């Protein structure tokens, strides 16, 4: 399968935070074959392992989160309308007139309602409705809907992907399943005999909530020697400062900040240079908005490199990325897990 197809296939999975196991079988079909074994833990982290075949080998963790932002049903109203609340940082601005899928006993289609301009009062025109005030139109009578949906039923965005110019693609769920796909592909490309250790790909759960849960407990259980944390990074657009974003098409970003391991980051950058892979440096004065803060503080501490795939319009149904960056990422991950130099320095 081409990397692009893998990215789109994985991004199409329904993995709303807390409900990551919904399409677990499909996930296994897509990437299970790249690995020797896989497990699911109590929080829904999916852990895929590719063994190097040597005893006492270092454990290399590659983390990308599996969950995506979404919603859950909070109430069922007359005429089959649903109210919802967000799971993860859903951008409220994208919701009105969006197509959604309600994952009840069966999958049903819904539309998030909007007030047409003809029926708006001038006072309403300037404010955005809070997510709890929006209604999802299902087209079902209440009694029928109650047979399919209940409070807590997850709701995701309808799957839709398009090719943009210059090898870019747009759609939902690239955060962070595009990274998960690149990581799986990178690990697939690395020959077993070249692996610098046992490779654990953790597709972690529940990253998008305020309590970053999955990665912490997953990393605790794996207890790796060092980790490559891969998440999307905010792409530069005309309305955001360059210093707070990374260029889409500029290669994988490597974050330099107080919690990422400087030496590991430098060695990863050198790997990229050696292989002729584009990369860019992203800087933060505190932590990162990724799993790195939880993973690096697990147990006795885990050295982390925090890598990013540049992504525009993050947390919308029109996230866009450059396939050239994705290709770079898969190659960099293959290089990272086969780097004997890094293993030498960071193995416990």
């Amino acid at each position, binding site marked *: 399968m081409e990397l692009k197809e893998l990215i789109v296939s994985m991004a199409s999975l329904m993995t709303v935070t807390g409900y990551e196991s919904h399409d677990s079988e499909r996930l296994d079909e897509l990437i299970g074959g790249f690995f020797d074994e896989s497990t699911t833990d*109590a929080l829904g982290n999916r852990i895929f392992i590719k063994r190097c075949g040597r005893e006492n080998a270092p454990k290399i963790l590659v983390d990308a989160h599996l969950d995506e932002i979404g919603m859950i049903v909070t109430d069922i109203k007359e005429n089959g309308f649903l109210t919802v609340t967000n*799971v993860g940082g859903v951008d409220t601005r994208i919701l009105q007139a969006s197509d959604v899928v309600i994952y009840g006993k069966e999958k049903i289609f819904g539309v998030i309602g909007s007030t047409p301009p003809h029926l708006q009062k001038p006072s309403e025109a300037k404010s955005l409705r809070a997510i709890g005030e929006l209604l999802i139109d299902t087209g079902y009578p209440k009694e029928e809907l109650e047979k399919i949906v*209940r*409070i807590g039923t997850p709701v995701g965005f309808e799957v839709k992907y398009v090719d943009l110019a210059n090898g870019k693609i747009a759609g939902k769920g690239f955060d962070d399943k595009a990274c998960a796909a690149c990581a799986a592909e990178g690990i697939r490309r690395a020959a077993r005999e070249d692996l610098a250790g046992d490779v654990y790909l953790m597709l972690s759960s529940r990253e998008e909530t305020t309590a970053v*849960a999955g990665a912490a407990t997953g990393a605790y259980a794996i207890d790796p020697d060092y980790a490559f944390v891969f998440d999307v990074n905010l792409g530069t657009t005309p309305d955001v400062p360059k210093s707070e974003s990374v260029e889409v098409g500029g290669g994988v970003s490597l974050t330099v900040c107080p919690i990422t391991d400087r030496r590991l980051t430098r060695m990863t950058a050198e790997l990229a240079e050696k292989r002729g892979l584009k990369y860019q440096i992203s800087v933060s004065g505190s932590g990162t908005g990724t799993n790195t803060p939880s993973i690096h503080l697990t147990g006795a501490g885990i050295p982390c490199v925090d890598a990013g795939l540049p992504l525009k319009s993050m947390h919308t149904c029109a996230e866009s990325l450059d396939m050239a960056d994705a290709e770079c990422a898969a190659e960099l991950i293959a290089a990272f897990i086969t780097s004997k130099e890094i293993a030498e320095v960071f193995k416990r």
Partner: protein
Amino acid sequence: MLELLRKVSSAHGVSGFEKKAAETIRGLIADYTDEQYTDTLGNLIAVKRGNGQGRKVMLCAHMDEIGFMVTFIEEKGQLCIAPVGGISFAASSYDRVMSEKGVRGLIVPRGGVKPADYSADKFYIDIGAKNRKEAEKKVKIGDVFRFEADVVRLCGKRVCGHPLDDRIGCAILIEIAKALANEKINDDIYYVFSVQEEVGLRGSKTAAYAIAPELSLAYDVTATGDVPGDTPMACSLGDGAAIKIKDNSVICDPTLVEELVDIAKKEKIKYQLEILTYGGTDTASMQMARAGSRACALSVPSRYIHSGNEMLDLDDAIACVDLTVAYIKSIN
């Protein structure tokens, strides 16, 4: 249930100062469990041992309550305070309060402060002292005050008073322990009465780390949407045990939610599903401990939370007990 709730509510237990509450609860649960101990942070843990082959199941309710800590004594004898936990000052003005040592007083806003501007530094506790000297005989800086404990019965099975958040959870745990005392259960059941929940889910975190449960259930109050003007929420007093799906700190294990719903349906125990769009519970810290545990919470719908006068329906609490007992039996 009402008598039990009164007993567990009577003991002082402002966050960080839960010793008296722990003693009281220990006395009430000792007969139904094999061992009881408190850990470094003060969590009370009572264990019913299984056959050594089973899971570790952690049931947790917090025994701490919101209150006030004295930070300074004014010349005229009033006590300046810092809040412990999320106090609703608008709701608590002129309420009676009592210190851990039994000193009584009123929590009052300073003169001329508008309700919109209410905050901790605009309030003081008046214990009726003539001046600083007299006050200092009764109170030291660092002493904690709680709202006066009192649980009264209203219409039907509804009660109001303080600190129902979360002594109702403590009472539920005791009732569960009582119901399971003579049952043959393979699992080890850990009844944890946690400390410092109101200041950030602190106690349950270390308790869960030490226990490393595979299955966790928290018991706490939750908000409702059943009085005029409430934030919309499909949760009402009297509609049964609220099985938590999500709050701001946690997304509960969806399969555990399903299992609880199935048991409730099968045993005809009244239940409702709860999504709280704010707030946090001990569920989060249990879920996150070590390599993680499957976690959920059963909540008692409660109005006027953190006002010093919560209101709830005892039948909902009894449903929580019944549901837990049925669930634990079903998995053993």
